[in-house]
């Protein structure tokens, strides 16, 4: 089996010969940073400064961290602090740096069947949605946003794994597909603001709840541990980490706007 695979790979190399070594790193990151357009704004600047190309594989936070654990990425850039701290504590990452934040918003149908519009209290809103049993579309994919959603249910005293009913639609997919589903069935959904602002197929959905401190969404960056995976490009990877938390990188993050609205707020220490 492995022999056949190797033979196929050698033949495949004929179609795609190795190019003169281009300097690049592989970055495992989240769909929110990629699909909001932040990376398209940020990475060309980094590449211009350093000559290092950044190849982004955009997955949920859980899957991105798993990519780092397997050694398939050089740098991980995600948003679920407890999971990131665990990743570093277990020796998969070198050190975690805070980069920026944005916030989550609760979106829902304009008609607002759960009557949550206008409040700032996200926990009360979660309560009302559960009580009214109106459709709620969840990521259900172990992503950072899914993780944050489960935490919010917990704060509302709801064990969503146990208390969910047919109203709770577990889509098991990325932010975009989940919003497509929510728009299709007029459901509430938790989304990061960046994806929401750049999302086009909104249907009847509008922002229902925003501005609660508990909707804060922190992003962190870490180099995958070269002690565990010797092939990790540590100099180039570290150069990227250093750059995004440098004044220059931070200014570049603050400069990214959609329709005049700033999407991410740099807060590296």
């Amino acid at each position, binding site marked *: 089996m*492995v022999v056949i*695979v*190797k033979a*196929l*790979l050698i*033949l*495949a*190399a*004929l*179609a*795609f010969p190795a190019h003169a070594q281009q300097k690049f790193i*592989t970055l495992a990151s989240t*769909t929110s940073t990629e*699909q909001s357009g932040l990376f*398209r704004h940020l990475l060309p600047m980094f590449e211009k400064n350093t000559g290092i190309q950044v*190849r*982004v*594989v*955009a997955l949920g936070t859980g899957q991105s961290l798993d990519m780092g*654990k*397997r*050694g*398939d990425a050089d740098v991980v850039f995600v948003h679920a602090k407890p999971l990131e701290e665990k990743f570093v504590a277990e020796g998969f990452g070198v050190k975690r740096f805070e980069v920026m934040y944005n916030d989550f918003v609760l979106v829902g149908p304009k008609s607002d069947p759960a009557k949550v519009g206008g409040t700032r209290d996200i926990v009360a809103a979660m309560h009302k949605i559960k009580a009214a049993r109106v459709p709620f579309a969840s990521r259900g994919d172990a992503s950072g946003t899914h993780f944050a959603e489960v935490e919010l249910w917990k704060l509302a005293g709801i064990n969503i794994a146990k208390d969910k009913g047919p109203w709770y639609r577990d889509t098991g*997919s*990325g*932010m*975009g*597909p989940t*919003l*497509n589903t929510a*728009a299709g069935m007029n459901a509430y959904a938790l989304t990061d603001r960046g994806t929401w602002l*750049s*999302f*086009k*197929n*909104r249907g009847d959905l509008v922002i229902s709840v925003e501005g609660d401190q508990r909707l804060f969404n922190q992003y962190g960056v870490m180099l995958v541990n070269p002690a565990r*995976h010797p*092939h990790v490009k540590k100099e180039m990877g570290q150069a990227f980490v250093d750059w995004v938390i440098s004044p220059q990188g931070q200014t570049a993050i603050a400069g990214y706007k959609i329709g005049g609205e700033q999407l991410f707020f740099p807060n590296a220490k």
Partner: protein
Amino acid sequence: MDTILQAARGAFDLITSGDRTLAEIVLLSLKVSISAVVLATLLGLPLGAAIAVGRFPGKRAVVVLLNALMGLPPVVVGLVVYLLLSRAGPLGGMGLLFTPRAMVLAQAILVLPIIAALCRQAVEDAWIEYQEQLRSLGAVGFRAALTLVWDIRFSLLTAILAGLGRASAEVGAVMIVGGNIDGVTRVMTTTIALETSKGDLPLALSLGIVLIALVIALNAAAMYVKEAAQRRYG
């Protein structure tokens, strides 16, 4: 309906605009899928022919298995190739994950059973018909099989085109092993999936129309080449 009309117009604009990014994505799609089909053909035709003329215990089981493998789920193939090529996997040292080569490998694995199974059937039918003749000419075993493959080469084109259809249409495998990296491993189907998840459905559909047009053009080209060759060598 509006979206569909908008998408059709968008597809036309995309094709006529000569957009460079789109051209690169189209080119990569073609290179990956055609390479995969070439590899699968090189392996699949002899394999299918050998099974067709061979007499060995468990042949029926092999045929059933081969036919069933035509329905290999792309996402499973993608996952297996991912685990093989991952740094933590047996071939991790080659560092091939998230490269076009990995995508060629995954698609070749998907296409191989299709070409082999369809070839097996075609050669078996021809074998029943020409067995006596071939025997009297002294052609036996694998050599007879290859003679048959050559004889029915024009019919086998359909098997190869079926393989190409599979390769150019699938998204599950290339998404996992390629990672849909902008400018490196982004192909037509993964771009369509990406634009769908961004909620830009008209653009996604436009790209879909471009992809279908491309597949039709490829098939038309294959048909033309086949007819020209038949006239000349038929």
